[in-house]
């Protein structure tokens, strides 16, 4: 047993992920084991995941895990082999390198040299705010204490609460033996470390008639006011008890920021240039017979003019992975569609620029100064929506979507919340809602964690979104679930 545990990397509590020095040292050791020349590349990922989940006011899961993944590529002769491991002692590393070399020999690939190879471009990677010492410092005990503080008020009021607290950290580096200490290639990944914290909580009454939810995610645990979230979830639960059934139809809706964010997620899936330029999606304008191509709505006003959606990698609240060619983007400028994402091939061929436009992931949406309370007070008859769930698109061209309201839906009558309402299914296009805006509030960060950025290689997706009041939002049926 001693031999086995010795093979696993030992990291102390204050170094739960690999540091830059650790990565370079491991890479150098791997490179030193290579036989027979050729390039050796390593992809080193480490992560830590501390979580606590509770249900019915009792903890059901508390874990503090960490792991490492080392991928080794060896180019030997005409072949390329790769192997993955998480065992970092010398013997294991050497065995892994040998295994990669054996697989390279067994599976030679056809390599046609390019006749000429101009120098590769060297893209810059911006600095982004994705690391927080506060997140990294949270211990299992601290998570337990935080959960106790969240559960306590709900329990004291006789409510059932369920929730999830999670802190993650990870590091990633992709290094090559041929470029150690020199300019990295675009596909190399300089050492990057990131954190992500999330806290979400659902409170329900024991009769199962009311439900309240609140949640927030950020790279920085210090940005998350967990007790305030707990209080909000509890308040919503209390207020949503004993809902009445309301006839579906078109209503003026006040969408809280979380609900707005969930609607915009549908829009984000369409923000690619290729879609309208192939004659599909919501942003296609028409076919140009003279030029023989599809024109898009780029440059045209497509949303309410109060809406501007941007992303600036330097925004301290919108940190995403510092990928090459990451630049500030304005997706919608005062309602005008100004950007759609595209790949680097497209950029070179159609725009003659050497930079892709990254997909709409993290973003900041403009807002107004109207508070939700003011929106309510100026509404004769409408609905206040906490958030949506199970949204799916029905039609790619209009973005017509359907989904359910969840965890709190209230009827507003004559400027006041009159009663809680049973959940409704909506069938509406987010574009319609974003074109029928009456009022907008102050943008705030919302709950938008990435499930596992390390495994999915997905970027972090922070968003800052305002509440909005929109008219004639279509609800098509009632839902019994609370």
């Amino acid at each position, binding site marked *: 047993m001693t031999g086995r545990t010795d093979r696993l990397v030992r990291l102390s509590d204050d170094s739960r992920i690999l540091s830059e020095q650790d990565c370079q040292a491991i890479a150098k050791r791997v490179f030193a084991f290579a036989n027979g020349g050729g390039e050796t590349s390593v992809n080193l990922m480490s992560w830590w995941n501390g979580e606590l989940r509770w249900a019915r006011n009792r903890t059901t899961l508390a874990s503090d895990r960490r792991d490492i993944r080392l991928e080794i590529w060896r180019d030997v002769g*005409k072949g390329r082999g790769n192997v993955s491991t998480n065992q970092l002692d010398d013997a294991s590393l050497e065995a892994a390198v040998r295994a990669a070399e054996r697989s390279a020999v067994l599976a*030679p690939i*056809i390599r*046609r040299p*390019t*006749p*000429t*190879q*101009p120098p*590769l*471009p060297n893209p810059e990677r911006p600095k982004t705010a994705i690391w927080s010492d506060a997140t990294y410092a949270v211990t299992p005990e601290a998570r337990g204490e935080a959960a106790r503080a969240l559960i306590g008020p709900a329990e004291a009021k006789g409510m059932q609460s369920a929730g999830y607290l999670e802190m993650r950290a990870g590091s990633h580096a992709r290094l090559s033996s041929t470029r150690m200490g020199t300019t990295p*290639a675009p*596909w190399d990944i300089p050492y990057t470390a990131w954190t992500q914290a999330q806290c979400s909580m659902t409170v329900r009454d024991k009769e199962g008639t009311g439900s309240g939810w609140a949640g927030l995610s950020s790279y920085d645990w210090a940005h998350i006011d967990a007790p305030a979230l707990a209080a909000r979830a509890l308040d919503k639960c209390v207020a949503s008890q004993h809902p009445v059934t309301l006839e579906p139809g078109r209503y003026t809706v006040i969408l809280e920021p979380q609900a707005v964010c969930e609607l915009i997620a549908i829009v984000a899936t369409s923000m690619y240039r290729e879609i309208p330029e192939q004659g599909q999606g919501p942003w296609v304008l028409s076919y140009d017979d003279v*030029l023989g*191509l599809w*024109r*898009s709505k*780029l*440059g045209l006003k497509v949303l309410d003019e109060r809406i501007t959606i941007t992303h600036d990698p330097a925004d301290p609240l919108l940190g995403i992975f510092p990928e090459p060619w990451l630049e500030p983007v304005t997706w919608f400028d005062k309602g005008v569609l*100004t*950007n759609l994402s595209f*790949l*680097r*091939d497209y950029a*070179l*061929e*159609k*725009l*003659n*620029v*050497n930079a*892709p436009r990254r997909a709409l992931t993290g973003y900041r949406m403009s807002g107004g100064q109207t508070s939700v309370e003011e929106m309510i007070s100026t509404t004769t008859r409408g609905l206040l929506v906490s958030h949506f769930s199970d949204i799916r698109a029905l039609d790619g061209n209009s973005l017509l979507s359907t989904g359910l309201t969840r965890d709190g839906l209230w009827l507003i009558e004559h400027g006041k919340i009159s009663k809680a309402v049973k959940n409704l299914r909506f069938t509406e296009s987010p574009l319609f809602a974003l074109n029928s805006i009456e009022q907008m509030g102050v943008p705030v960060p919302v709950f938008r964690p990435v499930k596992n950025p390390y495994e999915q290689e997905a970027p972090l997706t922070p968003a800052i979104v305002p509440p909005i009041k929109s008219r004639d939002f279509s609800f098509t049926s009632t839902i019994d679930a609370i």
Partner: protein
Amino acid sequence: MIQPQGNSLVRPGFVRRARALACRTFGAIATAIVSFAMPAHAQTMFQWPDTAAHVSHYANMEDCLAADDRVKRSVVHREELTVWRDTIPINPRQALEPEPVEVAKTASQCAARFVEPNIDIRDFAPALTLFLAAGRDSDATALVARRVAAPARNARDRGIVVDSAVGIYLGARPARLDAAENLLLHRVRSSSDRVERLKTYATLLISTRDAGDTVRSRRAAQWIVSIADSLTLADRQSDAFERLADGNGGQLYIYDALDELTGFRTRMDSLKKSTMAYATLERANWSRATGERPEALQIPIGVKAAPLSAEHWYPASAGSSPRPTPGHPALILFLEHTSCIGDASTSDAHPAPECVSRMAEVRRIAERFPSLEIDIVMSTHGQFMYLSPPSPENEATLIRDWIDAHHVPGAVLGVTTTQFWRLPAPDDRRIDKETPNLTHYSFGKSWKVGSGSMFLVDSEGIIADAWRLREEELGQFIEVLLNREHREK
């Protein structure tokens, strides 16, 4: 009784050694006895698992075909490690060469369990493919006969069966031209539709010519010409006729057949006389095939070649005189680096195979005919591989380096700066204007020049060929033009 301790101490040394030896010997014997007594199977010795694929155990034909395909791909892959087929001349009789031994052996082993009379007629296509791959042609013939004889809803369905069988026969290696021809002729005899028969004969012409069987291709050409003479005006104006030859119309088949019957030697004889004589011959064939006037020939033969224009010439001195050079035969090759170089977003920007083969072909021609002028025409696009060059000059230099790397001796490169405009911001898409070279070398709607297009121009600046530029024929064209030039001088 207790022995006095001193006795053992005084025991002589040889006695102690003898006892020790006896103990060791006895111990060894005992161990050996125990070892022999142990059953052999109690030892678990590691053995590599049997990972060999026993194709003879495969229960269905799809598995056999998949196995055969895997073997074929591994053979091809192994060959491609050392042989780049696209850089060597095309083997015109490749279709008649057998499959590699491993492939045929796999098919044979796997097909052993399938007996023809027991094959379900619904498995006709995979079974026929497998029998042909296994070299069981008699079983294949019996199967096809059984399938064709099976009841069909109508003639169209039966025609589909025949088409499938012909496709499999021609796709097999070696291609079974005999069997395919028999089936097609059987089909023709059973059909009174002249357009349908024309199509069938054209299939035969194309497949046999591609396989290098000139006897069969000439025979098919004769049948096409015969049936063409019997086509009525209604036949020629029918939708079915218009749909032939990938929508270009059945007249292309007829023209192709006339060309086949004219023969390469006859065409070369007319070219030896003059390019216009050759053009007249081709135009006459076109006129006979289509009923149109001779000048309507869609192929730009006998047309004056426009001078090439370019902002960047490599070598620079090439730009000081008109190209193609008057009084000298020239081969003009149009290429677009955007079509030739693969994925722009990575460093593995491999050239497209068709460009590789084209450049290799031009290199061989340049080496064979050092006196032939070779003009490569390219244009800028604002990008090169994974780069966005800052200026057209910069891009032209990158293009030149790329062409230089193909080592075509004596080739002249002309790079045109493509004029373009952009859609209004924020769209910003680049819209290229057609370069003068593209305009001058495109002839009507039917002859658009593209990457890989070649034109052979004689010493009088007249296009001698732009169509049938297969390497072995192209070489003969060039030889004739160069001899003519020599004679004229």
